[in-house]
C-alpha cells in the first residue's frame, strides 16, 4: 500500500498542483510584465508571498492561485471568447516592481 501511494504521488497525472511560476506567461499577458517575482498578500491570512511560490491549479477551466500558507484562493483567471476574467479579491494587494527592475 505504501508503495502504491508512493507511485501515485510520483505520477504527474495525479499531481495537480504546480507553482505560480508555471503560469507566469499567462500572468505576464494580463499584467504586462513578469510578476512571478512580485509579492502578493493573501486577503484571508495576510501572509505575504512571492507570486511564483503560490500554489497554481492550472488544469481546470481557468487558473487558480492559492496562498502557500493558508491555501485560500488569491487569484482566479478565466479566459473566455469574450475576454479574460481576472478575479483578485483574494489578494489584499499585488506589488509589481517598477519597470525594468526585477524583484528578488
Amino acid at each position, binding site marked *: 500500500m505504501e508503495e502504491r501511494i*508512493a507511485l501515485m*504521488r*510520483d505520477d*504527474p*497525472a495525479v*499531481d*495537480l*498542483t*504546480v*507553482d505560480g*511560476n*508555471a*503560469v*507566469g*506567461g*499567462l500572468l*505576464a*499577458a494580463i499584467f*504586462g*510584465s*513578469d510578476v*512571478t*517575482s512580485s509579492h502578493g498578500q493573501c486577503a484571508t491570512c495576510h501572509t505575504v508571498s*512571492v*507570486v*511564483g*511560490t503560490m500554489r*497554481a491549479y*492550472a*488544469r481546470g477551466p481557468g487558473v487558480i492561485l492559492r496562498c502557500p500558507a493558508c491555501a485560500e484562493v488569491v487569484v482566479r483567471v478565466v479566459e473566455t471568447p469574450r475576454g479574460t476574467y481576472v478575479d483578485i479579491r483574494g489578494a489584499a494587494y499585488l506589488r509589481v516592481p517598477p519597470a525594468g527592475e*526585477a*524583484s*528578488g
Partner: protein
Amino acid sequence: MGLEWQLATVTGVRDETPTVRSFTLALPAWDGHRPGQHVDIRLTAEDGYSVERSYSIASEPERGGEVDITVERIEGGEVSPFLHEVVVPGDRLEVRGPIGGYFVWEAALGGPLLLVAGGSGVVPLMAMARHRARAGSGVAARLLFSSRGPDEIIYADELDRLAAAGDGFDVVHTLTRHQPVGWTGFARRIDEQMLVDVLEPLGAGTRAYACGPTALVETVANGLVRLGLPPDRIRTERFGPTGT
C-alpha cells in the same frame, strides 16, 4: 519584453532517454534568458482549439538566439506526444518567454550551490549547471539527482563530463527502482539523511534549488530547513501536469 508569441524554428531534435527528448528552438526575437526560466509553447489546431504548456529551458544563456527544451513524453498528454511523434527539424512552434524570475540562479549570485532534481526536474537545473560551466564560475556545486533507473538518467553523459571537469561540480545519483549490478550509490528516494550527506561538504551558506514532483520538492525543502538552511535560500519548482 518577451511576452509576445513568436514563431520558433525547430533546428535540432535528440533523444536523451527512451522517453525524454530535447528540442533546439531558434528564436527570431530573443533577449536572452536567466538559468531556471521557462517558455510557454502553444499548439493550435485547425479548428482554433489551442493548448499551452510551459517547459523549462535546458540550455545556458551564453548560447544566444536559441534555447533547448527537454520534454518527457507523458502518455495521454496533449502536447508532449505531439512534440515527440510529430515535430521534426524545420517545423515551427509558437513560443512565449522567457518567464519566471524566482527560480533562477546566475553565477553572480554565488554559492555554494545545491541542486536537487527528480526525473525531468533536472531540466532547469541543467541550465544552471551549463551556465556555471560556461561562465567559468568556480562556486562549489553539487547535483543530487533521483532517477528510476540507469537508462532513465537524463543528460547522463554530459553530467559525467561536467563532473569530470575538476572545477568544483559533482553529481550524486540515486536510482530508486532499478540499479545496475555492482551499484554502490544511493538506491532509495531522497530523504533527510541523504540530504545530510550531500549538504555536508557544502555547508550552511548553501543556496538550494529543488525541482521535481511535489512530494520530492517538499521532502527536500522541509528537510533543508530542518538542517538549518534559511528558507529564503531554498527555491523550489514543482512540476505537475502543466509540464506535460
